[in-house]
């Protein structure tokens, strides 16, 4: 049974919306612009739902469903087609992207209502949807890379949306450049695949995965491991992992819906998706998996600690995003790709909700982003309070909310995996505790206590730590140049309009129930998502010699717990819940019960506190190690030396030389006929002498 689903319609619809709004939107009214943007996004979502429904397992359509639109690049034996692919993995991604994307579009209608460049915003947002859908639907790495770069472009445009503000423009550039570093590695990875396999297509008999499965496990550092590492490095750029995570916190300069859509729910998960998609490669490269796990683990704990001290509500969420992406990386690193994708899905629900909730809070308090000036908002904006509460519980990992199931899935897999083990598991649990702590810190600081709007004098520290954010507040309040400036005479704290609250409520429901598709078996669930994804992720890692034990590991982290380790599973889950509750307790203690306690502790551990507050000086370190030397090298060697010295020197030298020669030759044209005659005579004599010489030497 062959159906034509016209998958290409899904990405192309938002592209049409982007084109209409981008080209003509300047003349449209705001309602018209939002109607166009919403219409095309909704149509895309509907088409995606229909397409997924049509190929749902059991419908008789063989998966992956592949749609070839035609050739794109063919050179020699290599060819990359325009082709789209729908399988269980891209189904989840497509639904998340179009669904969450649509909700955020609705939210933006309310949130951006008073901003300048309204049509520009929706045009970019639709453009982002187009590229993101291309990314997740592509059937080869090259087309995926097109989407990959495209979302980077959209991200750049949207971070720098308030481009009159220097910090926003700089943050956009930073995101773009840091991503380029990762993309470079991704490209190298693709080149290696072309060199060794001659193709970049995913599925099919000649596809990458079918071919690579014929290779044996690369236990050393062969090309498979190098390829996997290159792909992984590409993913660290897009998914904001150590060492390339630095762009994501700065990306909060963009409007809040952008932070929610691009820098929390969808784009940053592209790296996770790419690794999950490439699992066949990673499974053959145990070293690469090990490194992925370690990077994920480091990122998770590192970003979580940085989240502890931030006072800008969006930056807390940014570090939290980095930390949660670390979890997903960790899941991929222990070859529990389904768990990673599961967490990706739940995370996109609750993190989008948190960002949109934060946007609603910022909207309510008139553009303030510093949590120390907030407080007591629980009564004033009750709907926002409740949805943020749900999201906070979900991210903290307290059952039965969504975050618990996915996080527990990952931690369980880590514990059993040969690439993980108890140490990494311990760090993961610690991170869960920290996550719970800083999220409830945000929650208590924002919604409890007293409203301190404009009455708190934030010392020097705040300026040092949140320089961009603070600078924003000092800058002009022109509607075009000020992020999240909602101080437009509403007077007092007020709840957001329903166009913003409705998506929040829907996301809150999803954050609540979203985890139930992955209830592990030891809790008498069926872990549907694991089984759903199983056909894509068919093979666990098969390390030579360890194949049997690995198989055990895969099956046990797949949730198919045997009776004897059910207890252990319960223990693991209990530990992570306990960590979350401990985090909650400390947050309660510090920021509700006795608010003077954090002051005392920070003054005692001043050194460490300052280090964490300044984000371990990573930005400064990168500046000193990479940026400054690079700038110096560019200035002194490449600019002054090569460009001004060699290139300009060659061009100017040619000019000067010909002018000098001409100046000398000019002297010969004296106007004196007899000197001309002399030159002719000398020339004639020279020719005669030459001919005589020819005659003599012959």
């Amino acid at each position, binding site marked *: 049974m062959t159906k034509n689903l016209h998958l290409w319609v899904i990405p192309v619809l938002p592209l049409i919306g982007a084109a209409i709004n981008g080209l003509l939107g300047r003349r449209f009214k705001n309602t018209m612009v939002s109607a166009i943007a919403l219409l095309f996004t909704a149509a895309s979502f509907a088409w995606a739902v229909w397409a997924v429904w049509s190929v749902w397992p059991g419908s008789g359509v063989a998966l992956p469903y592949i749609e070839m639109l035609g050739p794109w690049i063919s050179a020699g034996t290599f060819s990359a087609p325009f082709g789209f692919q729908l399988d269980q993995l891209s189904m989840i991604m497509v639904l998340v992207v179009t669904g969450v994307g649509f909700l955020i579009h609705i939210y933006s209608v309310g949130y951006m209502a008073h901003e300048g460049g309204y049509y520009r915003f929706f045009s970019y947002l639709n453009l982002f949807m187009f590229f993101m859908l291309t990314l997740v639907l592509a059937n080869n790495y090259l087309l995926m890379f097109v989407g990959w770069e495209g979302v980077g472009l959209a991200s750049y445009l949207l971070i720098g949306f308030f481009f009159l503000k220097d910090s926003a423009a700089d943050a956009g550039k930073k995101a773009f450049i840091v991503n380029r570093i990762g993309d470079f590695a991704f490209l190298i990875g693709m080149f290696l695949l072309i060199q060794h396999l001659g193709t970049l297509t995913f599925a099919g008999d000649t596809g990458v995965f079918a071919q690579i499965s014929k290779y044996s496990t690369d236990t050393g550092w062969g090309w498979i491991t190098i390829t996997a590492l290159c792909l992984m490095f590409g993913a660290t750029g897009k998914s904001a992992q150590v060492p390339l995570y630095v762009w994501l916190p700065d990306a909060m300069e963009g409007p809040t819906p952008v932070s929610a859509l691009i820098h929390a729910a969808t784009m940053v998960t592209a790296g996770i998706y790419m690794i999950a998609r490439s699992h066949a490669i990673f499974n053959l490269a145990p070293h690469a998996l090990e490194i992925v796990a370690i990077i994920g683990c480091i990122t998770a704990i590192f970003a979580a600690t940085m989240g502890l001290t931030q006072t800008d509500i969006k930056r807390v969420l940014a570090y939290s995003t980095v930390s949660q992406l670390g979890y997903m990386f960790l899941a991929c690193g222990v070859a529990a790709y389904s768990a990673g994708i599961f967490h990706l899905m739940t995370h996109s629900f609750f993190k989008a909700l948190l960002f949109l909730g934060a946007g609603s809070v910022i909207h309510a308090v008139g553009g303030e982003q510093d949590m120390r000036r907030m407080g007591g908002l629980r009564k004033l904006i009750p709907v926002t309070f409740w949805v943020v509460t749900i999201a906070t519980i979900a991210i903290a990992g307290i059952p039965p909310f969504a975050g618990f199931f996915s996080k527990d899935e990952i931690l369980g897999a880590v514990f059993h995996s040969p690439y993980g083990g108890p140490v990494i598991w311990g760090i993961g649990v610690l991170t869960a505790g920290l996550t719970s702590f800083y999220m409830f810190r945000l929650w208590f600081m924002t919604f409890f206590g007293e409203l301190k709007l404009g009455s708190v004098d934030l010392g020097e520290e705040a300026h040092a730590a949140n320089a961009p954010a603070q600078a924003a507040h000092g800058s002009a309040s022109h509607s075009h140049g000020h992020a999240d400036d909602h101080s437009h005479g509403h007077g007092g704290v007020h709840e957001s309009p329903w166009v913003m609250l409705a998506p929040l409520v829907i996301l809150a429901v999803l954050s609540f129930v979203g985890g139930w598709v992955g209830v592990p078996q030891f809790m008498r669930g069926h872990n549907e998502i694991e089984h759903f994804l199983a056909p894509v992720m068919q093979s666990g890692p098969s390390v030579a010699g360890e194949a049997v034990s690995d198989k055990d590991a895969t099956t046990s982290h797949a949730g198919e717990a045997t009776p004897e380790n059910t207890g252990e599973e319960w223990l693991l889950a209990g530990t992570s819940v306990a960590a979350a509750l401990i985090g909650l307790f400390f947050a309660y203690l510090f920021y509700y019960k006795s608010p003077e306690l954090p002051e005392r502790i920070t003054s005692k551990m001043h050194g460490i506190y300052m280090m964490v507050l300044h984000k371990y000086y990573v930005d400064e370190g990168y500046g000193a190690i990479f940026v400054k030397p690079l700038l110096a090298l560019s200035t002194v060697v490449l600019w002054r030396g090569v460009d001004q010295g060699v290139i300009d020197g060659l061009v100017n030298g040619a000019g000067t030389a010909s002018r000098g020669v001409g100046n000398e030759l000019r002297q010969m*044209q*004296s*106007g*004196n*006929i*007899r000197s*001309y*005659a*002399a030159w002719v*005579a000398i020339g004639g004599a020279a020719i005669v002498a030459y001919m005589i010489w020819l005659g003599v030497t012959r």
Partner: protein
Amino acid sequence: MVPLSWYLILSGILFSLGVLGFLLKRNIITIFMSIELMLNAVNLTFVAFANYWNTHVAPGQQIIPLSGQIFVFFVMVVAAAEAAVGLAIIIAVFRTRETLNVDRVNLLKL
């Protein structure tokens, strides 16, 4: 019979005298006469070689009789035409500048 080399040496001397006169003299008329001298030096070589090859025909060699002499006539015709044009130019120069000194006539400089 006078050997060929004598003719050539004489021709060389005449040509050199022409060149030197051309270079060293300042009067246009003298320079003009030096040019004629050089032309006639060349004419002398032409007829000398023509005569030589006519009397020293190698076995089996094809020669065109009187070719050298014909060339000399061409040169003479050109020289006569040149004398006519050249003298006209000299008269025109003298009328405008009232001198025949070539060093004063240096308008060829840009």
